[in-house]
């Protein structure tokens, strides 16, 4: 039997399947975007509207929104693999299991980025935060943070697939492990909102996120199969 397609081609096949299903129903994107919007509205009622408070709190709001909305999307995306036990079907194919992990993580990454694309302008609009003064740095931090979330999130969402209380346990596992991502993300964004930002600080945090992503990507690739196989 010919096995011509490489690792990345197979990973892309799986990711594009996920994205195609999502494009057809748009369920996850719509509900995540709505939820993110709701959070922003709640924040704007929960915090006083003076400039200093807002500027200090907006980075945290942004990253908490990503964490919460991202977790919902992550859970739902893996629910789709559970409904007809299709993750098992993927694991049964001769495709290297790394490719399955890469494909799932890539699709989740795109979904989390979609949340960020919705949440950031909403925060800037409703709370009058100058988030877009340094678009490149902001995009870098969000991309790297979302990637870390997608990598670790995919590993544990896949292992939790058969667990009954997975919706409660997913954040119990993810958030303690992901705290560095949120701290680094908030740190980099907070610097951008200062009156005179020291871009060096932001760059250090983005670099930190990059190294974090790389380390956990390697770890996940190494351990994914052992974790998901019963």
């Amino acid at each position, binding site marked *: 039997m010919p096995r011509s397609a490489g690792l990345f081609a197979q990973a892309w096949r799986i990711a594009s399947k996920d994205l195609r299903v999502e494009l057809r129903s748009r369920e996850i994107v719509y509900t995540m975007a709505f939820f993110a919007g709701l959070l922003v509205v709640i924040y704007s009622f929960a915090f006083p509207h003076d400039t200093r408070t807002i500027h200090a709190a907006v980075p945290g709001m942004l990253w908490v929104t990503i964490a919460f909305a991202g977790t919902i999307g992550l859970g739902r995306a893996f629910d789709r693999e559970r409904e007809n036990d299709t993750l098992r079907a993927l694991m049964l194919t001769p495709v290297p299991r790394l490719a399955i992990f890469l494909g799932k993580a890539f699709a989740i990454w795109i979904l989390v980025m979609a949340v960020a694309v919705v949440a950031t302008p909403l925060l800037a609009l409703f709370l009058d935060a100058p988030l877009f003064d340094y678009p490149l740095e902001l995009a870098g931090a969000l991309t790297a943070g979302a990637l870390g979330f997608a990598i*670790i999130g995919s*590993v*544990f969402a896949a*292992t*939790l697939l*058969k*667990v*009954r*209380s997975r919706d*409660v*346990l997913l954040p*119990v*596992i993810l958030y*303690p*492990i992901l*705290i*560095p991502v949120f*701290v*680094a993300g908030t*740190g980099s964004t907070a610097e951008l909102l200062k009156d005179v930002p020291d871009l060096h600080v932001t760059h*250090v*945090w983005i670099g*930190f996120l990059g*190294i*974090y992503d790389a*380390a*956990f990507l390697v*770890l996940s690739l190494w*351990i994914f199969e*052992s*974790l998901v196989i*019963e």
Partner: protein
Amino acid sequence: MSSASSASSAPSRGLAVPILCAVAAIGFVVSLWLAFVVAPPALDLFFNQKIFYFHVAHAFMLFTAVGVAGVCGILYLKTRKPHWDDISSAATEVAVAFGAVVLITGSFWARAAWDKWWNWEPRLTMSLLLWLVLVGCVLIRRFAGPSADRIAAGMALFGMVGVPFIYFMVGQDQHPNSGANGVAATLDPAMRGAFWCAVGTFLVWFVALLLMRLGDTRAEREVRELRERALDLGVIE
């Protein structure tokens, strides 16, 4: 085969725990003596500084336990030998206990040094974050059903790999409330004896706790296996 190995190791296991406990008890008294009588009082904190010996020793054990849980987690995931899972699980539970002591004594320390019960001192923050991972592991073991062992092993492993990142992070982070970190940095040579004695004591105590917990799990396994064998043979219904 399993019964033979357990029978031969039973007497040594039976003795190891009491001996370790006795050593830890003696060590504890000696460290108290060294800390309160021999070591000079600290210049700025006086009597309050004495908690340092026990606080930091527990923090060392917290990190040791996380390392043990993480490494045994890898071994379990790669080999699927149940005893690695038992060790990882026991280390996690012991680490939660040690971590609780670290956080409580750290909080006393913060009250004495900075007049606040919690002030996001970097090392204490680090212990807290690590402790959260471990509590998560325990929750997983309790509530995740038949696949709990795999998931908890994975979480311990990811938590362990995250330690250097947390370390770097708390160093970088200019937390609004974070206090200066003075006393722990420099250690008077006269205090070192008391400090290392406390570390040694709690290391022994850690191993003793680990073995006790492990003994429980093994006993549970053996009872299970005996029951299964009896059921297979039709001796019991």
